[in-house]
């Protein structure tokens, strides 16, 4: 059996605030294979975003191990973690999080800039990514000049421009109306078809069924994993 792209063993996350311990994640075991499309769902506060932050190396588990591409990530320095985030991971946020002072193009180019890539190559890649999400015609716009759906498509382009191993999306449709939401989901489905690995948090069962596998979290635990029945 090939090594999983992501493997969490007994991962826990405990937040300490004012003497109160919050067990956001309790003993998570999880494997995600390359090319998989996984959705995570569960009630509010069950630890979905926390899990995603750990997967994205934005946060560290309180205990347990995390293997990414077969390598454990626990010993990495801040700079090495930044490097892994930059190369291996693409983020899509609920509130888009485009940088207001930068144009659409500059937003998409940004991860490549942190990689120290030459300008010409950055440009080609960013434009290609924007084409892929259908935003090639808005490169000079500022985020404030775009609709929410358009902003989120730019955010998708920014997430995939660096050709990461995995796209992490935290409720990408949460701030969108259903029509725009469906467009973004269609885009993700398309990306998946061309081989992208996706891990997406969503409340919305309509969108969860796009995924090959849904992980249910409850109170920081995986309570149920199911493979949706393919409607045939």
């Amino acid at each position, binding site marked *: 059996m090939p090594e999983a792209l992501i493997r969490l063993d007994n991962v826990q996350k405990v937040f300490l605030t004012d003497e109160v311990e919050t067990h956001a994640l309790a003993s998570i075991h999880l494997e995600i294979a390359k090319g998989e499309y996984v959705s995570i769902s569960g009630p509010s506060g069950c630890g979905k975003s926390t899990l995603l*932050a750990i997967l*994205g190396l*934005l*946060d560290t588990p309180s205990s347990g191990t995390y293997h990414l591409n077969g390598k454990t990530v626990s010993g990495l320095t*801040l*700079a090495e973690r*930044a*490097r892994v*985030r*930059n*190369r291996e991971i693409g*983020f899509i*946020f609920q*509130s*888009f*999080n*485009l*940088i*207001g*002072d930068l144009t659409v193009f500059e937003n998409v180019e*940004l*991860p490549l800039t*942190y*990689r120290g890539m030459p300008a010409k190559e950055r440009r080609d890649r960013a434009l290609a990514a924007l084409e892929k999400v259908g935003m090639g015609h808005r490169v000079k716009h*500022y*985020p*404030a000049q775009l609709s*929410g759906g358009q*902003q989120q498509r730019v955010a998708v382009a*920014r997430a995939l421009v*660096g050709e990461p191993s995995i796209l992490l999306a935290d409720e990408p449709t949460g*701030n969108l109306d259903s029509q725009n939401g469906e467009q973004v989901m269609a885009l993700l489905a398309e990306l998946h078809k061309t081989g992208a690995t996706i891990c997406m948090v969503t409340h919305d069962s309509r969108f969860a069924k796009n995924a090959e596998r849904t992980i249910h979290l409850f109170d920081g635990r995986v309570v149920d994993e199911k493979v949706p029945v393919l409607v045939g």
Partner: protein
Amino acid sequence: MSELRQALRRLGRSPGFALLAVAMLGLGVGTNTAVFSLVNTLLLRGLPVPAPGDLLSLFQSNPKRGVERDVTSVPNFRDWRDQSTCFTHVSAVDPGQATLATPEGPEVLAITGVSASFFDLLGVPPVAGRGFRKGEDEEGAPLTAILSHRFWQSRFGGRPMLGSPITLDGRPFTVIGIAKEGLEVPVATDVYVPAIYPADSQRGALFLPVIARLAKGKTLADARTQLAAIMERIPSEKERGWTASAVPLAEDAVSDQRMSLLLLQGAVLLVLLIVAANLAALLLARAARKTRDGAVRAALGASRMDLAAPLLAEGVVLALGGWLFGLLLGRAFLAVLLVASPAALPAWARPVLDGRVLLVSLGAALGTALLASLVAIGQKVRSVPIEALREGSRATPSRGSRRAQAVFVVLELTLSVALLGLAGLTLRTLSNLATQNLGFESRTLLVANLLLPGAEFETPGARRSAVQALTERLSGLPGVTSVSGTTTLPLGGNYNDTVFGLEDRPDAPATEPNVTGVDQVLPGYFETMGMALREGRDLSPRSAPDPRASEVVVNQAFERRYFPGASALGKRVFFGPRADPRRAATIVGVVSDVKRESLRRSERPQLYFSYLDITPRRMTFVLRTALTPGELSSQVRAAIREVAPAAAITSVTPMDSVLGDNLTLPRFLAGLLTFFAVTALVLAALGLFGVLSTVVAQRTNEIGVRLALGAKPGDVFRLVTGQGLGLAAAGLALGVGLSLGLGRLLGGLLYGVSATDPTNLASVAAVLFTVASLACILPARRAASLDPVAALREE
């Protein structure tokens, strides 16, 4: 009113902001109050006499000889006084020194010889006794004296003195009055005596300062015309090209300080502007945090005035707080200033916080605070409600207000760079003045000023032998390597001129008096001073004058001026008003030039005679020491008292402290400007720090995004410092431009450095970037250490 009370309550709820704002305003208002009270005292209120604008200083000039302005002679003074109709009074003001006989031995005083009309002219009668009466300033009148209030208090403890005798220079005077406290116009003095001159005084002997009061209805122009006309009627003066004119005495009295004061006032206005910009940035940041509140209120139907009123009220409250704090600071600054540099101001100028100063400082506080409030109001009213409400849910917030804050910080940096530039120039000037080559070696030199008063030193012979005995005794002191003396020490504040002629010289004919500096020195003077003998020899050491073999040494300036390209050795110089050929001296040596009249001016042609030839009643001994000169002064005093108990010691000080006295004003200017520049820089750095902190706070989410996209902490650190240093670079570029422009105004205040001096600009840049980097570090570190998850959650 209720708006003000509410504003006070709101400010009370953010005490940090309120205190910072009041402190900044106080600093700006305080510096302005201190400097403006100087400007008010010296330039606006003027001399402490009734109608000070009517007082004039009269002088004579000779455009043909390049003499712009000179004091006058006794005969000219008499002609001006007797023939003019423009003046109510004309008075001589002849400052000098005299010795007061005391039981402890002679004491040196500052005395001023004045005409009988002097106190009427000033319009300030003595507070006790009476002023001088008509005729008391004529030969043969009984000798009377009026004490200055200060001297009366310090010397006589304020005890009744009217009618008491005092002995000045061995002659008995009767005290007839006590001058008003703080009069000190036009010069500070201990005692006023009538100025009495012999009937046959020479027209060529220029030594007398003269003041006058304009009569009712007469103008400065009238006075000038009339003085010129009077000179036209004096054949000898007309023939030699002399004319006369007048300037307001007030202008004259502050001519040294005027430029410096205006410059300082300009500097503190810039500081105030920086405070305004800083406050505006602070208010903007505060308003930005409440954009949504404002937008919600606007959406609920608040008018622009409704939105502006609270901000205006806060501005007024802050201004009042800043004003009160500023007055306290201003008083403190002023006190420090007067203690640190008492000699920088004329003695009559005692700055106080009068009504005008209070009003101006209130105006400064209100103006600054309201200017800043208006900026914040403009920003608030302009932000369209919909956008403000939408902001935050979309891209990162409020670029507009951040840009406005950046503009203010650049303005602050620009102004502080300009001030730093000016301060740098004045510091360089001070250092150039202090470390320049003076033409003599001052470091191990001790100077002892003596007067030889009274009957004991009546004859030249008595003075000669006293000086000789003193020289011998002082030479024998341990630690003294050589001793000599002069009548006018370089930079000591005394200069004598003489008229002379040269044989066979059309440009300086023997028949025509020419004026040059003159000094009487003891043997070995040049060597003791460390001056270089360029040609010939020193004056020969003799014990008595030899009128048939009179010798003179000239300086290089004299040789350059009268014998360009040739040697002056062996040439003959004639003296006396008509260049009497029987009173001639042969040039036996040429010495190097020294700084004599001022640290800035290069020396005029100068003649050095032997003290034997003239033997005035004053002598300054110069002692070259192997020890620190100050350590010897008490032994020198003791030795002088032992050898010549009747001599009066004016002072015994190291030459370096004489030089220090010449640096009072440049030091005052450089010190204050540096203080203001540093204040400005600190304020600007605070502003930069504030803006960057706001930026980091506002961009927390963005920084989280960048971290998620793979930015390393170093990238984020550079992002913030880059922005800060970018602002600094903009401020530097603009500030250097401004500094170059302002530097041109300094002109005459600078010495040995130009406004475009690259070293100065480089130092300013270095200082600015160091301080700007410090201001960047904290916000940048905070940004770089943000937790990405928390940052992303931030909206």
